[in-house]
């Protein structure tokens, strides 16, 4: 009897634990959907642009043709410099965030950008984690003017294609004069259509252009 009495509470407790575990698992699963959008806020809650570029295996150096010296550079500097050969001269860039795993910095502001945008133009932002540089991220778009001193984004796919094509086929290594990067496409989001200000439709085909460094070291020139 004692055994019976003791076993029934145990069964009940076990059942409760199972339900709780199931609920926890359900909640955990619901919350774990990783987003490949960028965010407009430092809490990483408000969707902004598709994170439509990924840069793998970056390792760069800067070469000073006057002194003949080379020096190591951060991966983000390599991206900013190469991107500036395509898009340079714009006004600036608002804060924008990407949600890295907590072990790699969590919700982080952009690490740099390239832009041609004054009233309108092209714009790409880059993000770099705090501990791992295996993959850096980018989000490219076109800016258009909408209302006085306001910009909105569109042409996401076109912007990513332009930048990816430049890295893979437009940029030549400062020392070898050869290609340093290859380009491929992966699907990370479902296709989606967004209405932005002034009646523009921004289409995201859901693809991310993956730009992979194919040489041990990519060299860019710095001014002497």
């Amino acid at each position, binding site marked *: 009897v004692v055994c019976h009495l003791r076993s029934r509470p145990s069964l009940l407790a076990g059942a409760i634990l199972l339900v709780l575990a199931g609920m926890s698992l359900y909640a955990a699963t619901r919350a774990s959907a990783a987003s490949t959008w960028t965010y407009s806020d430092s809490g990483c809650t408000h969707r902004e642009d598709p994170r439509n570029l990924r840069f793998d295996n970056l390792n760069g150096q800067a070469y000073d043709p006057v002194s003949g010296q080379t020096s190591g550079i951060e991966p983000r500097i390599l991206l900013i410099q190469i991107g500036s050969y395509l898009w340079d001269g714009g006004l600036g860039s608002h804060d924008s965030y990407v949600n890295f795993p907590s072990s790699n910095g969590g919700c982080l502001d952009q690490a740099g950008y390239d832009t041609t945008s004054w009233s309108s133009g092209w714009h790409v932002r880059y993000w770099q984690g705090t501990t791992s540089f295996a993959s850096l991220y980018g989000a490219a778009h076109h800016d258009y003017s909408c209302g006085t001193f306001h910009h909105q984004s569109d042409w996401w796919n076109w912007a990513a294609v332009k930048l990816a094509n430049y890295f893979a086929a437009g940029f030549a290594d400062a020392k070898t004069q050869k290609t340093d990067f290859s380009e491929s496409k992966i699907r990370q989001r479902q296709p989606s259509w967004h209405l932005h200000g002034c009646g523009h439709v921004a289409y995201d*085909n859901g693809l991310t252009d993956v730009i992979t460094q194919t040489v041990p070291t990519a060299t860019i020139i710095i001014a002497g």
Partner: protein
Amino acid sequence: MSRRRQRSVGLVVLLAAGLALTLFVSSRPAKAGTTTYAQLQTSNGTVDIWQDNSTGVLTFQYDGAPDSLRFDPSSFTVTGIDGTSVVSVDTYPSSSVAWSNVDSQFGVSQSQVTSAIASGTSSTAPAAALANASTQNVTSSPYQTAVHYATNLTNLATGTGLGIPSLTYLDGYALVDTAKNEAYGPDLADSESVGSYKGSGDTGKVANLWYGSDGTGGDLISVSIAAYSSTNPTADGSIYQSLYNSSSYPHYYAPPGSTFCPTTPASTSTAECGVTIQYAQTDDFDVIFQYGSEWVGVTTTTAPSSSEWDTIIQGIVTH
């Protein structure tokens, strides 16, 4: 009058006539077959404007910017152009809506543009005048089209041939615009390539309904409806089906464990009551589910809770 004096007078008359003709030609408004150019100063900068005198088509460009906008006032069509590549073509339901969008983008009203062009000068056509979507390589130069119907859901259904829910509010947000959309370009990932389809991506017709406003005219919830195509793997409907069938994404019931009575595009029969709707969540902001014979993709601005997703999905399938 001597012959020599007569020749001098004749020369002066000829020179005067030539000068007058030159002045007339240089000051006259441009005529049909030519392009008229004008500039307007706005709070956002100097806007260059060209008008094709034979068609009335206007091209706008912020001075020095790489991209421009071509506007056909007769068809209410606005074409976004990068250099000589078409990137977007939007057709609006009325002249006033089209002009309003041009105005809000460039800070120039219809009357200002009309007045500026009236006193403009003859010019060569801008590079953007050469842009032609039908001849461009969409693999390297993708573009998209939109036919806007404002909030007219009947016209959206007619224009797309797709089943459209009669839904003017969703999750408390009002319908702000609808459109038939289509995009052309590299719409498949490398792993999704199917023979020659890679890079020739045509999304097929997609009906989009946008709800709520973020304060700048942007939507808060976008609902995309598309059909699966057995012959086009790049169609949005085909991709939705493929992603929905993928085990990579979690699937949920809306609402969990209960059933309700959807109104499908194909039938309003209550025989279909008791259906449970299962949806795939592909991102914090994105879900996919089936609606009759169509596929629906929903994207939000902030990540909904599971109960909010239930509300959104039920709102769509029960209308």
